[in-house]
């Protein structure tokens, strides 16, 4: 019983690792992102791991920036003067892109999401929560009378 359980857990963990590590064929993805106080359109950009991402940043009001967490690349745009950006999405996970130019009071909250699929950070953490949770339940149910802890 115990062994079976362990094998099963390892199977899940390994397949998640595999999913996280496997690379997809590189494709080029182009996005036209409009920035306007205090959000981006589109606000969520989804690509696959390995994609070449190209972005044109268009500002619709004031000077805005575009900094991508995890990739540390950035650009900025004035109205009528677009910014552009190119990078290879080689790290999976969800990252924020943020405005890097103070553009008004909500500037620190001006963010969008770049999702590089598969989002293994999330699936790994979620799997960890579920596995650990179930493990703890097993421990609890094996407790005998008077046993502490």
């Amino acid at each position, binding site marked *: 019983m115990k062994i079976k359980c362990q094998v099963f857990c390892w199977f899940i963990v390994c397949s998640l690792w595999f999913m996280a590590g496997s690379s997809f064929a590189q494709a080029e993805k182009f996005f036209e992102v409009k920035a306007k106080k205090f959000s981006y*359109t589109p606000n969520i950009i989804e690509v696959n791991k390995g994609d070449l991402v190209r972005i044109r940043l268009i500002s619709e009001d004031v000077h805005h920036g575009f900094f991508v967490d995890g990739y540390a690349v950035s650009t900025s745009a004035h109205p009528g003067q677009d910014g552009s950006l190119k990078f290879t999405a080689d790290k999976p996970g969800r990252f924020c892109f943020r405005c890097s130019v103070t553009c008004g009071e909500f500037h620190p909250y001006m963010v969008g999401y770049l999702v590089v699929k598969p989002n293994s950070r999330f699936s790994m*953490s979620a799997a960890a929560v579920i596995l650990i949770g179930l493990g*703890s339940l097993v421990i*609890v149910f094996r407790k005998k009378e008077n046993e502490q802890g």
Partner: protein
Amino acid sequence: MSKDKLFGLVDLDWRFELTKFRPVRALFKSRWFPLLPILFNLFIFVIILLAGFLGGYSAGNYNFGIMIVWILWWVMLMFVLVPVLSRAWCLMCPFPIFGEWAQRGALFGVNMGKLGGLNLKWPKALKNMWIMNVFFLVTTFFSGFFTVRPLATFILLGLIILIAFIMGLIFEKRSFCLYVCPVSGFQGLYSQFATTEIRSKDPQVCKEHKLKTCYLGNEKGYGCPWLLAPFSFRKNTYCGMCLECFKSCPYDNMAFNLRPPGADLLVDDKRGLDEAWKSFIMLGIAMVFFLSMQGPWGVLKDMVRASTLRGYLTFITFHTVLCLLVIPGIFFVFSYLSKVFSGNKEVSLKKLFINFSYTLIPIGLGAWIAFSFGIVLPNGSYILHILSDPFSWGWNLFGTKNVPWTPVFTHSLGYLQGITLLVFYLFSLAYGFRLSKQTFPGLQEAKRGWIPIFTFLTLTTLLFLWLYIG
């Protein structure tokens, strides 16, 4: 009987007295401490207020007040002050100092006579967390202002200081801190998780000391300003760490201890619906703050910053309903299921609901710490700027005025948030089952009754995980 060990590692009764070191005890007994930190913070808060006032309605990320309060102070509270040092902020908090000063008529020495002001007793019906719950929730209605507009921070802090002063003149001792201060409630709630505590050492010494000077005061120190009985209180929630009892105890019987995190969660004392709701409200606010501040939805930001009145009212309504009704409602359903699963008829649903609400403290604190990572890592570098130019007058005090905005470690933000949630989830589980054993008389009932609560905690963790990194 075998010892109850947290994660099978640390004995829950384990304590390590830090005041056994002579310099620490001497420090705690000195009247300069915590007076000096309070005065230092008073100085900082004067600058904050000034910067808030001068900064007016401008964008806040280059404002000293906004940055120190909402990046440095808030994050310090969530990262170290509360989880490690309990209510150490209240130890050095300058907000109530004017009221206390007026009561005592002395800043440094001990006034043995009658305290000034009206010294009225706080109404019994309000001796709980409800006012703080409402006050804190209402404060968050304005989060789209005070976290970004210097003037709004000025008004908020100014109001807190003013109310604290007026209440100090009317009500006895720290009534404001105990029952009104908006930052008090969550510190009290989450300080139950803290890894340190102030407690009396040897109950026998207290028993033989007929004149309870820690409660009544003597020439060395005031009677507990937080109206506790220092010789017998059992959880951190209502001890403001003012250290008066260290000074007034003639036998050095008060101690400052290290302990396993979360020890108070098992203390069945003053548990109630007010504290339960504090937990729900904190969870709700963490979600709403995340959605509006770290989420990508412009519509929501427009609501929170009141671009239209209608949008703003919609935000307030949803936020309030979520915190006060939806989360407690869902938790109620799971509590009910717990009762059904357990098969126990005697334990009241109310008791079960209240007891299990304490399982939300670790995961709530974890959600707040994870949220705070998302605030401090991207925005922390602004602090270097405002230190050099606090009033936006073009100063360059430390030569850091022109440091560009530099996000720090934001590539690892997702990992940090994920790990934080996971760790605090573990604490919730560890204390959760113990609370179940405390609630149900039989072990089998406790096991079965635990399943729905376990499910609730797991789902809550997964929800936060999905919000933050999914």
